[in-house]
């Protein structure tokens, strides 16, 4: 069971690692790295769904009737673009936070706002 569904185990491992980093890390950049890992696990989940046993490349060919499903890849292409935009926006916010607070540590930022 474990060997047959190994893709899901990889997904779960990656997902939990990313999620843990997002929650536990106080560094704003590391949080975004965790978020990326978390999203990447979902990309793998989708792409592994598209694999069909003995499936061929999904381009029409003579003598082939069993094709892999190309749709998840297309969906994930879109999701990757969304992920890139999220990362860019997140990092842009971090740059501005760093310019304003001179820190990217959550605790330090909170401390500065408290004293406001």
């Amino acid at each position, binding site marked *: 069971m474990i060997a047959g569904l190994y893709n899901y185990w990889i997904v779960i491992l990656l997902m939990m690692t990313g999620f843990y980093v997002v929650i536990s890390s106080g560094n704003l950049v590391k949080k975004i790295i965790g978020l990326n890992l978390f999203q990447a696990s979902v990309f793998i989940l989708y792409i592994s769904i598209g694999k069909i046993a003995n499936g061929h490349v999904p381009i029409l060919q003579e003598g082939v009737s069993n094709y892999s499903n190309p749709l998840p890849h297309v969906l994930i292409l879109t999701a990757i673009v969304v992920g890139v935009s999220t990362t860019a926006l997140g990092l842009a916010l*971090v740059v*501005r936070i760093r310019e304003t607070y001179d820190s990217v540590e959550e605790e330090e930022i909170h401390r500065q706002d408290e004293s406001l």
Partner: protein
Amino acid sequence: MISEQLPALQVVVPLIAAAFCLVLARPLGAWLITFAASAASMAVSFLMLNTVMDSGVIDYTFGGWAAPFGIAYRVDLVNAYVLMIVSTISTVVSVFARASVTSEIETHNQGFFYTAWLLCLTGLLGITITGDAFNLFVFLEISSLSSYALIAMGADRRALTAAYQYLIMGTIGATFILIGVGLLYALTGTLNMLDLAQRLPDVANTRTARTGFAFLTVGLGLKIALFPLHLWLPNAYAYAPSAVSAFLAATATKVAVYVLLRFVFSVFGVEFALGAMPLALGLAILGSVAVLSASTIAIFQQNLKRMLAYSSVAQIGYLALGVSLATPAGLTATLLHLFNHALMKGALFVALGCIAWRIGSSRLQDFAGLGYRMPWTMGAFVVGGLSLIGIPLTAGFISKWHLILAALEKGWWPITVVIIAGSLLAVIYVWQVVERAYLAKPPAETSRAEAPASMLIPAWLLAIANLYFGLHTDLSVGIASRAAASLFGVVP
């Protein structure tokens, strides 16, 4: 010919307008485009609502590909109603935005501001209109990304951290939704919501279906800001530019609630979502806690935008309570409150924006004597506040009345107690403001200094709508009850 293309136009008009806004980048021109595009989407949504009321569901396919292969839009009474709310609020608030944005945002950023506004509108309308689960995720991210950017443009430096926090939590929520959709796709092989609804009952009793449902609900819970997943909301609304607070408070969470309704009622079906899964109980408990705790926290806020934000969390609690009843009456109350809450929060945030424009603050201590300095603005604020409490003759009363009736019909009297307690707490936090504005001793000079007409008119339009829909309930209750019936599968 054009009437057939309405569903595409609903999304394409603001999208193309956003591109023109980006090129133009001049504040006045960008604002004109924003207003014109919002007004055009409002016209489209009213035309569609009219068509749906008369002749039923509109189906639209993209690229000439039939439904399961291409992306299909499907407009029924429920999403026509939500589209109408979103586009109307965008139009009214964009009138207000001109003066507010000029005073709060640097000139060279205003073009970007309006571009992000239109993209956010595109996203919200797209989420509502689409009949494809993955397309929904894409539009959700379009609206979310642009709203992070909009919030980060707030003048206070805490707007940056608020936007960052929202970005992290919002992305986790959206990714959870993506996982949920992926699991459903793995199970059924389709992303079209109609197909999903047909194929899910056969496989509903599998662990994959239950897991997918759980991921979807938690992800949507984050987007809805359902207690205890609301942590991003107070800061985001408190430090965003005034116009953004008004726009997002009245639309963003409403659209997320709509998506929850769509998945619970149309895709999974009531028996599975509220029967087999413990969602009804969860929503009832979380909704009650949200109403009581968020209303209590709201009382202690010194920043009024923050107070209204906590009040929004409480209002989301009411929406959740209506869904948890799992009856047509409860759902009618939720849909009604969706509309009424958009009106009251719109009015309140716009009025607060007028005050921020004039005195440059939204802190309670600066409100002394404001009732005499800005009588019209405070008048609109008070009407919105009364509606928020649920005083008879205002829109807020109608939705709470329906919610209480639905709870009693079901025999869940503790919910009735929660609703009344929440309203009493609302009396306290609204009264604080009224007391400070009208009864406290004003600082020094109290010459009259109103906000400009372009800001007052939207505030009063929304305030009058609160009164109108408190008296003339046929229209709002009629649409809401028909929409609720259609979600329950009863042919209206």
